[in-house]
């Protein structure tokens, strides 16, 4: 059936290509990742991490990663499924604290301050490091209340007028205001997927965090909504530091300043995005971005 559906493909040629790919993969897997290649460190980083290990129970998910995120830059994290991108990202605002089996080791600094220090309050940290999730997760409240939630929570608005202003500004920056300005009191869950994701971004930037973490923010969206959010990310990077996990190489290439390639819990290569996509240094990275692996 499959061969009939693709009449132009010569079956023998295809199997040869497949075999070649498999061999490449096997060769790639044999390459051990001892040390991250490229430039994991930058001058005056916003976030710096050293020797990070993460375990779920006894199972290691992240093995000895050291990585900096530059100030007002976008860092893209790419890599095959299950390689630990989300796990690493969630360490940066201590969301992993909520998973009982998860154990985090290593040194994490935000502006040089140890965020896992005993006196550090994860609640305060999360108001400085916001997060947007893969699946849009608006509260089952009105659009207005969704955006106003964090502002009210932290008492950032002195009065109703100021709150209105913050809500409007955040929705505008997320490129959603014009679409919803007449429906601010309708439920946020009634919006389309792309609108919901922009609502979640508006909600995150409403409390004016310093860093925004995004875990595959456009994986559930159509190309138009994706383009809108990518534009938004580029715009936001003027004021914020952004770390984004993505499966789309094009997206990484379009929005990020630097790109990090993860593989089986290890950080294989980090470099300026153009260099990663033009001249990858590690064979694993090359395999992945040329589409032969992952």
């Amino acid at each position, binding site marked *: 059936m499959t061969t009939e559906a693709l009449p132009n493909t010569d079956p023998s040629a295809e199997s040869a290509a497949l075999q070649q790919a498999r061999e490449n993969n096997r060769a790639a897997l044999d390459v051990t990742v001892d040390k991250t290649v490229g430039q994991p460190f930058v001058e005056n980083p916003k976030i710096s991490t050293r020797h990070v290990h993460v375990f779920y129970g006894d199972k290691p998910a992240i093995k000895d990663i050291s990585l900096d995120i530059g100030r007002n830059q976008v860092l893209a994290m790419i890599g095959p499924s299950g390689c630990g991108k989300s796990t690493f990202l969630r360490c940066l*605002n201590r*969301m992993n604290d*909520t998973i*009982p*089996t998860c154990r985090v080791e290593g040194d994490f600094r935000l502006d040089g301050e140890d965020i896992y220090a005993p006196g550090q309050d994860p*609640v*305060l940290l*999360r*108001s400085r490091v*916001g*997060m947007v*999730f893969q*699946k849009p*997760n*608006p*509260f*089952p409240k009105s659009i207005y209340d969704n955006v106003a*939630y*964090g502002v009210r*929570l*932290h008492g950032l608005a002195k009065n109703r007028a100021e709150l209105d202003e913050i809500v409007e500004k955040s929705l505008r920056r997320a490129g959603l205001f014009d679409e919803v300005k007449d429906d601010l009191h309708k439920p946020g*869950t009634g919006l389309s997927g792309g609108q919901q994701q922009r609502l*979640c971004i508006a*909600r*995150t930037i409403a*409390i004016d965090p310093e860093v925004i973490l995004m875990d595959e923010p456009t994986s559930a969206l159509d190309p138009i909504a994706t383009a809108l959010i990518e534009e938004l990310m580029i715009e936001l990077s003027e004021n914020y530091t952004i770390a984004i996990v993505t499966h789309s190489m094009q997206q990484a290439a379009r929005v990020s300043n630097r790109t990090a390639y993860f593989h089986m819990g290890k950080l294989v290569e980090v470099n300026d995005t153009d260099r990663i996509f033009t001249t990858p240094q590690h064979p694993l990275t090359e395999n992945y971005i040329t589409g032969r692996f992952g």
Partner: protein
Amino acid sequence: MKNHQEKIRNSLKKRHARERRFRLYGLLSVSVSILFLLLLLTDIVSKGLPAFTETRIKLDITLDPQQLGLGDHPDRDALFHANYSRLITETLKKMFPDAKTRKQRRDLKQLVSKSAAYDLRDAVLANPSLLGTTQSFWFLAKDDVDQYMKGRIDRTLPESQRRLKDYQLAWIDRLLAENRLEKRFNKTFFTASDSREPEQAGIRGAFVGSVLTLLVTLALSFPIGVLAAIYLEEFAPQNNRWVDLIEVNINNLAAVPSIVFGLLGLAVFIGFFGVPRSAPLAGGLVLTLMTLPTIIITSRAVIKAVPQSIREAALALGASKTQVAFGHVLPLALPGILTGTIIGMAQALGETAPLLLIGMVAFVADVPHGIFDPSTALPVQIFLWADSPERAFVERTSAAIIVLLTFLIAMNGLAVFMRKKYEKKW
């Protein structure tokens, strides 16, 4: 390929047949359960409906102050203590001079309920100027007369096998001929408490007792149950041996026979803490023990069903665990929690055994005024009446069951309504 399609087609026939068969089974079982339900309901309703009417007898009473043993200017106290029942007896004797023997005269008195004297007293107390005049009163008839009026006494039976003798039937016939007997809506059943006399017995006391008991149960089990569920789901360490132990114990508690809770309540609440016996407070405490596991288990299930993404969204914005639990999880879980609570309350409403043990089975002729007063509850009242020999209590038993079922249906209806109204989609 063709072969495959044929095979699929053949198997399809079998699968459709199986589906039809299964649907038939389903329909059958639903019909059987509906049949049983209908049987139960028709039995109860047909037995209980007559209890909602009562028979009244019209007597013309001359309120002769002399016969009442009153002076010229009687004070309230004298009016209160005057012998009204003799006046009624005399009136009856005058109406039916054929009652000669002592037995017949005693039976003559048995035409009207003992409550007639109190009704008469209350009328005179309310309006003393009635003294010296002749008035018509509709008195409550005795239960035997009532049963006859409802066709429950067969006059074709030999005299020795009936509750009413021939001469009594003759009196009733005369009263009927003079339009002095009437069936009316039975208000007494809803305004009176329990009584030894069936025609004076009502469910007010038991109803109020049940409501008070349930209020105590609700006030205790709802907050405790919900807080326990929230703690176990949102705050307690996962995979912790103690938490597992608690969970196992809660599940076990839900399966403990209610009579055991009754014994526990008797020993602990009444014996040790000195809670008054037979009081709604004691009943409520015992029923709290029973409903807590139900509320905790259902609440935990509902809380678990709140999507993790909502918690993460709030946490990522800098909400604390408590703010997430009470600001997001609880509101989303509340409709389900309320449903579970109401179902638990409905169970508590129908519970009898533990209440028997803590003394709510005592004969209580007063409506309880608070949670410390002695009281009964609806199911216990049903149990008590079902145990009484008088025929009139049979129909009252069924009538009380109807009231209890109505109460239950109202509560369950409320549960469905709340779920529909507050259910949120995400």
